[in-house]
Each structure stands twice: as structure tokens, then as C-alpha cells.
């Protein structure tokens, strides 16, 4: 699917234009960029949703489809103009020490599996990784990240290098949990666009849904991997459905 030029069009509402003109991100180019991101992320949602045969999958697909429909059916000039950045924070408790978890995150080579539900990651060295996210129509978004801060047993933070369509950064914190419960692990992902408008589109369009799923899933996968050595899977789960045969 080409999500570029066919979507551009003349703005129809003078009032909306005036409002948008007064806010960062209201310019024609930024609006188009917002829509582009919404469409891409709507497509990701739809794809993620359609890949699983479940109630949740259906909900995801519906949400993704709704985003696509909304963006495809509206005229470009009507794109909103808030400038929030998409940021999601989730926390999970893992029954390992902070030092162990830090090592797992930094040195275990587990990141590709932890984020495998969302992105293909190639770790080029301990500090750099290449991320690729597939979107419908054979397109993909990719970026490189570099670790910008790491404190053993405490935190790792990274950010994308310049040149990506969807600049982002993330950080993971490790904090001892009470009693024998292990470590509280908090993962935060920010998607921040150049000029502050792309992320706004993403955040508004997704209404927190997709990033929260991505972040929650990543934490759950990390926990399962370090606690049990595997991530639960339903691939090739027998059923009387042809799609899973």
C-alpha cells in the first residue's frame, strides 16, 4: 500500500486551517506526515490483529482497521494538531535480582526475542541495534538505536539515530521488589517525531492502545524468557482450523 501522495488534498475548512496554522504541526506537510504515521501504525495494528486467531486479535484488527478507515476517509487538512509525544510506561515484577536482569538485558542477546512480536532486531554490538518493523504492502520502517546510558543493575536507555521516519527512545529500569519477589522492571518507550507532530499523530491515533500492548508484551516476554527460558507460544497449536494446520 502506498500511503504517500494520494492522500494529499486541499484543505476544506478555513477555521480548521486557521487553528492548525496557529499550532505546531498544523502545516500541510506536517499534517500529511501525521496521517502517514497514523496509516502505518493502523496497518501494523491490523496486521498484528489478523495474525492471531483470538478475541484480542480481532479487537486489534478492528482497532487497526478503524484507524486506517478513519485516515483514509478523511481529508488531509482535517488532521488534528496536538503535539503530544507517544509515550508508554509499563512495569512488571520478575523473580531475579536487578544485577542478573541488567546482565540479561545488556549482554544476553535476548533483545531480538523480547521484541520479536513487534520488530526484527539485529544487535550490531553491545550498544547498537538495527530495528525493522514490517507494515502492510511490503513496506517496513527501520531505525538504528544506540545505548546512551547504562548503569549496571539500574537502567539502560537508548535512542534512535537520526534519519528515521519515527524517531524513538526507550529505557528500562530495574528496582528491587519487596520481600522475595525479585525486581520491579519498568520499560518506557517514547515515539517522538521531528518537530513534535508525528508522535502526536501516533499517540492520538492509537489512543495508547498499540504502544501499551507492545510495551506490556515486551515485558511479559522478557519475564518469561528469564524466569523459564522460553516464551509461551501457540504456533502450530493443533485445532480444527485450516489456518493452524
Amino acid at each position, binding site marked *: 500500500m502506498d500511503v504517500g501522495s494520494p492522500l494529499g488534498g486541499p484543505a476544506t475548512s478555513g477555521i480548521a486551517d486557521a487553528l492548525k496554522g496557529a499550532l505546531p504541526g498544523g502545516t500541510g506537510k506536517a499534517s500529511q506526515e501525521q496521517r502517514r504515521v497514523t496509516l502505518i501504525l493502523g496497518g501494523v495494528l491490523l496486521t498484528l490483529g489478523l495474525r492471531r*486467531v*483470538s*478475541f*484480542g486479535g480481532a479487537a486489534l484488527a478492528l482497532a487497526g482497521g478503524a484507524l486506517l478507515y478513519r485516515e483514509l476517509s478523511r481529508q488531509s487538512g482535517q488532521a488534528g494538531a496536538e503535539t503530544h509525544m507517544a509515550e508508554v510506561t509499563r512495569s512488571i*515484577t520478575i*523473580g531475579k535480582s536487578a544485577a542478573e536482569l541488567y546482565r540479561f538485558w545488556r549482554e544476553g542477546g535476548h533483545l531480538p526475542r523480547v521484541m520479536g512480536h513487534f520488530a526484527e532486531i539485529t544487535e550490531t554490538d553491545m550498544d547498537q541495534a538495527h530495528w525493522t518493523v514490517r507494515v502492510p504492502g511490503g513496506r517496513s520502517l527501520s531505525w538504528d538505536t544506540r545505548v546512551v546510558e547504562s548503569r549496571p543493575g539500574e537502567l539502560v536507555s537508548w535512542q534512535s539515530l537520526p534519519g528515521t521516519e519515527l524517531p524513538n527512545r526507550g529505557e528500562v529500569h530495574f528496582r528491587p521488589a519487596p520481600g*522475595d*519477589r*525479585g525486581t520491579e522492571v519498568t520499560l518506557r518507550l517514547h515515539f517522538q517525531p521531528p518537530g513534535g507532530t508525528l508522535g502526536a499523530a501516533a499517540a492520538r491515533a492509537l489512543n495508547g492502545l498499540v504502544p501499551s*500492548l507492545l510495551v*506490556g*508484551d515486551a515485558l*511479559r516476554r522478557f*519475564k*518469561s524468557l528469564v*524466569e*523459564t*527460558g*522460553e516464551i*509461551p*507460544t*501457540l*504456533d*502450530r*497449536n*493443533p*485445532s*480444527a*482450523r485450516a489456518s*493452524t*494446520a
Partner: protein
Amino acid sequence: MKALVWQGVNRVGVETVPDPTILQPTDAIVRITSTAICGSDLHLLDGYIPTMVHGDILGHEFMGEVVEVGREVRKVKVGDRVIVPFPIACGHCWFCQHDLTSLCDNSNANAKLAEKMFGYAPSGIYGYSHLTGGYAGGQAQFARTLYADDNLFKIPGGLTDDQVLFLTDILPTGYMGALNCDIQAGDTVAVYGCGPVGLFTIMSAFLLGAGRVIAIDRFPYRLAKAAALGADPLNYEQEEVLEALKLRTGGRGPDSVVDAVGMESHGLGLGGLADAVKQTTRVLESDRPHALRSAIISVRKGGTVSVPGVFGGFGDKIPLGAFMNKALTMRTGQTHVHRFVPRLLEHIVKGEIDPTVIISHRLSLDEAPHGYHIFKHKEDHCVKCVLDPWAAPRQGNASGTSKAMGAD
């Protein structure tokens, strides 16, 4: 292989499906020798547990022989005869380490779905909707089992399938239902529902020191089973439960009441009718909590309500006033089967519990749809159907294709 699959609300059938394969290094494949239909399978059949998908293989009470193990399986060996607890335990998380295996943090592959529904996700369960992982169940010829070393219990030689099959679910479930009553010597325990779980609750209550057990149901053949175990039968269609319980306990009420019925209990009068109508929408009210309401009302002051019966969503008009003002305690949960298997196995070996007494029907897997039918509609004095996945169907009951089950 052959498997019993969910084909939509009130429709199940036996179909040929792909064999399961090892997917993780800690998996084991079990060739199933015995499997059973559980009362909670009826909630799936009836469509009251959300997230079922056409083609899902049902069944969470199964046992058999290990025929293949993943490369990291250490304790379990090919050829072992094992039972498979219905909740899946990873063995490593905080809940598993604290004997709360039905709350395992890692085994539910669809945890985020369950979190939407319940706030936090319980463990994965075989053949029990996508809310609890979406794993293929054990009403089949083979099953993939997860974290084999932490889940498969080896069965000592000399015990038959019939003696140990119910260790997978209903025996520990009845036992935990009784244990949750915190029975003191001589206590009176009332048990709502004389199905398999209720009957095992009765046995367990006596084992744990109850002086008297009052069994409540409306089917005389089930009440007779309860009476044969030593319980006093109470037919709620013939006697008003609260007054009858008061009469039998000197006006005090039972020290604890067990709801071994759950979300599809049958109420009398307008309240029962309203629940039934609302529940058929599957939206207005997913659960019919009639037995639970009655348990809260009829238990003594300061008593305990124990709920092994399964609920899935939302129920109306729970008498919270009675619950609060009578200072009651409620204890519930999907069963932490792993915790109870060793001690129950010992009771079986010593002859203190005979789980085989509840078996009313033995069918081939091909006859499973018929089993669902008679179990649901309480026909042919059905209490518990045990299925043999390898037996040829007998004449008359075979029903390999989809069969409409009919509503209540």
C-alpha cells in the same frame, strides 16, 4: 489425530486435526489413554466463557503415556505414565514457588487478553478458551504438554486410569473446596451441587473432619450418590433451603457452605428466571449466581463461603449486605492442582478416597458429543463421562459429526 472440537455455541464434534508437536524444549507429547468431560466444559459448550473459537480442541482432564520429550526435559521420560494437571505451571514464577499454580505468571500465552477481563492474568489451562492461553485440550488422542518436568506427575504402578484420572482437576478441586472451608472438627458443611466436584467436596469434607455434610441438589439420582457418601440430601425443589438448613442445624446455619455449581446454577422463581433470561444474551449477565447468593444467605454468621464452582464474568445481585453484616469469609480460585496431587495420591493408595465411584459412563472419543449431551441435560443418570480416545465407537451412541446440543 482425532479430537473433540468446539464448533460454536452448543455444538461440539469429533474431527481429524493435526498431531501436536514439540514447540519448546521443555514440552512433552502425551499419548492420551483416558480423558474426561468436566462440568466447566459445559460453560464452554454453552458459550458463556468468552473467546472460544470454532475448531478449538476441548478437554482439561487427561492422562496418558509420554511419547516424546523436548531436549530440556530432565525428570520426565518417554514411556512414563502421567497425569496432567489442568492449570499449567511454569514452576519458576513467584506464584508457582508459593504453591499457587493456577495463578502462574508465565504459562498464559494470552495473558493480555485475561488482563483486560480480570485485571491480572491467571495461568494457562489446556482446552479452556483463549482467555487461559488457547492451548489445545486433551479430549484428543495426543496433547502437547508444557513445562513437562513441573507439570507431569508420574503414576505409581498398580493404580488404574480410573483411580488417578480425576487428580487432574475435579478431585483436587473438591478437596480445595473443602479445605477452603477451614473445617473444624465436628463442623457442619453444606455443599451446593452434587456433580463430580460436589461429590469430591463431600468426601474431602469428611476426610478433613466435618461432623456432618448436607448435600443440596435437585436431581434425586445425584442426591442418592451424595447420600451414599454419608451426606444428608436436601432437594431444593422440595424444601426451602434456608429454612431446611436452619432446621437441621438448630437454627445456627452451616459453618460453611460450598458453591460447587458456579455460573450456570438454577434458581427458582422470578430471580432465577431473570438470571436465565439475562444470561442467554451473554452480555447483560454472563453468570447465574443463584447458588452463590443462597450460600451467602444460608451460611451461619461468621461462616465461610467456599467457591470451587467456576465463574467467568459478571453476576448480579450478590447479597453484599448479608456478606458484610454476617462477617463472612469467601475463598475461591481455580484449583492449585499441583499442591494437592501428592497427598491425594496417598489417600487413593491407602484406599481412603475412591474416585471411581463417580464414574457413570465410559465412552469412546467418537461418542463424546453424546457424552456432552447427557451430561448437560442430566440424562441417563449421568454424573461423569470418561472417554477412551482409542476405543472404537459402540453402536447407537456414535456421533462423529457435529451435533446440536439444544439449549436448557
